């Protein structure tokens, strides 16, 4: 391949070394914040003040973690981030499940049961992906008020489901259009109907797409801040909002070790998703990109 040229001259060998050096330096740039967060969270506040960013903790302790989890102040409340962590879980699970399931059915229809106007519908949905959410949040707040939906978690499930549908539909539709029509035709000749074909044939072969979709939605919803801060208040706020409150509204002494522990806790779920489903995560990102 292209690198053959590199092994020929000493100059090329130096060039090759340079490439590795640049790649390694960038690896350090990306890893540094994670390293700093972890070591800071394991230090005592005194050590944070006296030491420096990169120093390893002299006596590693999880005290900052337990403070962050159960007694740190997020605004006026001082009961840690645990409640908000569970809020995010309670919002995440139904929103991901609903948007994935509805997206799968939509994609199935748009790929295999096209009707007059279905392509237009898909186009409209895709254009919706480009909207900056700032342009819909004021009416959404009004509408949630009309609906009388008071519970912040329920509001966020609804909002995340609705605004996730464009992407989940796209993932499944783009997968199902690659399935040969003959499969559906044969199944119909055998007497299978719309729902049977979906549940018995399509869903079982969609597992990779389901993984892409679930991972995409999980990271989107868990990491969201705008909807969280706009549509929920007080005790129903999600994790990201609580973390921001903890970092930005604390007065007096800044507990950097606690802040870092809280930030890591907030990052852990999506980091785990990335660690275990990285392949699907990247596929989702690039699928979204190809779409634009």
């Amino acid at each position, binding site marked *: *391949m*292209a*690198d*053959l040229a*590199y092994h020929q001259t000493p100059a090329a060998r130096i060039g*090759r070394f340079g*490439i590795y050096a*640049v*790649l390694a330096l960038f690896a350090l740039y*990306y*890893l540094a*914040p994670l390293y700093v*967060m972890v070591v*800071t969270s394991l230090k005592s506040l005194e050590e944070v*003040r006296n030491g420096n*960013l*990169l120093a390893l903790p002299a006596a590693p302790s999880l005290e900052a973690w337990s403070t962050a989890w159960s007694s740190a102040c997020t605004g006026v409340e001082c009961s840690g981030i645990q409640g908000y962590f569970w809020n995010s879980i309670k919002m995440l699970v139904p929103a991901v499940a609903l948007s994935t399931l*509805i997206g799968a059915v939509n994609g199935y*229809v748009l790929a295999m049961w096209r009707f007059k106007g279905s392509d237009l*519908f898909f186009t*409209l949905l895709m*254009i*919706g992906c480009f*909207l*900056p959410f*700032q*342009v819909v949040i*004021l*009416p*959404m707040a009004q509408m949630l008020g009309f609906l009388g939906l008071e519970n912040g978690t329920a509001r966020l499930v609804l909002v995340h489901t609705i*605004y996730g*549908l*464009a992407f989940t*539909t796209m993932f499944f539709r783009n997968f199902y259009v690659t399935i040969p029509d003959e499969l559906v035709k044969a199944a*119909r000749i055998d*007497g299978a*109907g*719309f*729902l049977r074909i979906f*549940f*018995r044939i399509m869903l079982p072969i969609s597992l990779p797409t389901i993984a892409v979709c679930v991972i995409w939605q999980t*990271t989107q919803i868990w*990491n*969201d801040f*705008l909807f969280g801060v*706009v549509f929920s208040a007080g005790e129903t706020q999600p994790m*990201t909002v609580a*973390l*921001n409150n903890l*970092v930005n509204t604390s007065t007096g002494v800044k507990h950097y070790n606690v802040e*870092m522990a809280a*930030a890591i806790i*907030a*990052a852990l779920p999506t*980091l785990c998703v990335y660690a275990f489903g*990285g392949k699907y995560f*990247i596929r989702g*990102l690039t699928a*979204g*990109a190809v779409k634009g």
Partner: protein
Amino acid sequence: MSPSPSGAQLTLHEGSPSMPSLQTASASRFGRLVDVVLPKIVVAPTMVASLVCFYGFVLWTAWLSLTESRILPKYEIVGLVQYQELFSNERWWAAMKNLGVFGGLFIFFSLAVGLLLAVFLDQKIRREGALRTIYLYPMALSFIVTGTAWKWMLNPGLGLEKLMHDFGFSDFTFDWIVNPDMAIYTVVIAGVWQSSGFVMALFLAGLRGIDDAIIKAAQVDGANLPTIYRRIVIPSLRPVFFSAFMILAHIAIKSFDLVMALTNAGPGLATDLPSIFMYQHGFNRGQLGLGAASAMIMLATAAAIVVPFLYSELRSQRRG
């Protein structure tokens, strides 16, 4: 067959051969009717939701922007007063200028770093998988987490500055995050940290799609590698540049959480952005109309970038 979730009407289809043919025919006619109606029924909720919550809400916001709504919405149209107020608001223009500075640098450096890493990674690098994993993990984080981490590292008293002092560079100062003239650049640093790995992944996928034969042919013709990249490889990545640009521009325009966590729009309003202006006027300051007007300008900004792109994409598709 085990019972399927598809309900009773479908079991009618499974007529055994001994079943009277008339019954089978009417059952399948019924089945066929179901198959015509059901697809429309199942997509109807999404159709309604997207029409209302995307397009309806944009019109609703547009309407609000033409009213005198303050804390509560009013629906009497008074014309363009909110836009006049917006355009004579110095804070708004400062926020737009910040968006220009942040967006421009963020997009440029994310593209540059992403392309550099992708080209280097494409040179048959050992441990490529591990490096890719490292470069891309920030994309899995919330901007709030990114902002929190960088806020701590850029802290002049205890962060990077102190680290350099400990290393013996006692004159080193790095106070950008508290310096109103420089704070916006810290947003760029954190933003590029988070997004450049993603751009790398896009470019790498593009590079892997290029036919090796073209590069080999150019080498046979005596072209050196940098020339091949400059003249052949990078120009063929044009579509990737386009989609990366679009995504980055989109991230920049709606950028909100990163600034909230990193600088809280400060010091003062030095890192204010249109999204923060919109949020504060629409939700905290009881200026619904002004918030709606600023949201419409954000939409127009996004459209100004997306529409030409889509247009050129569609045109090249038709040609191709």
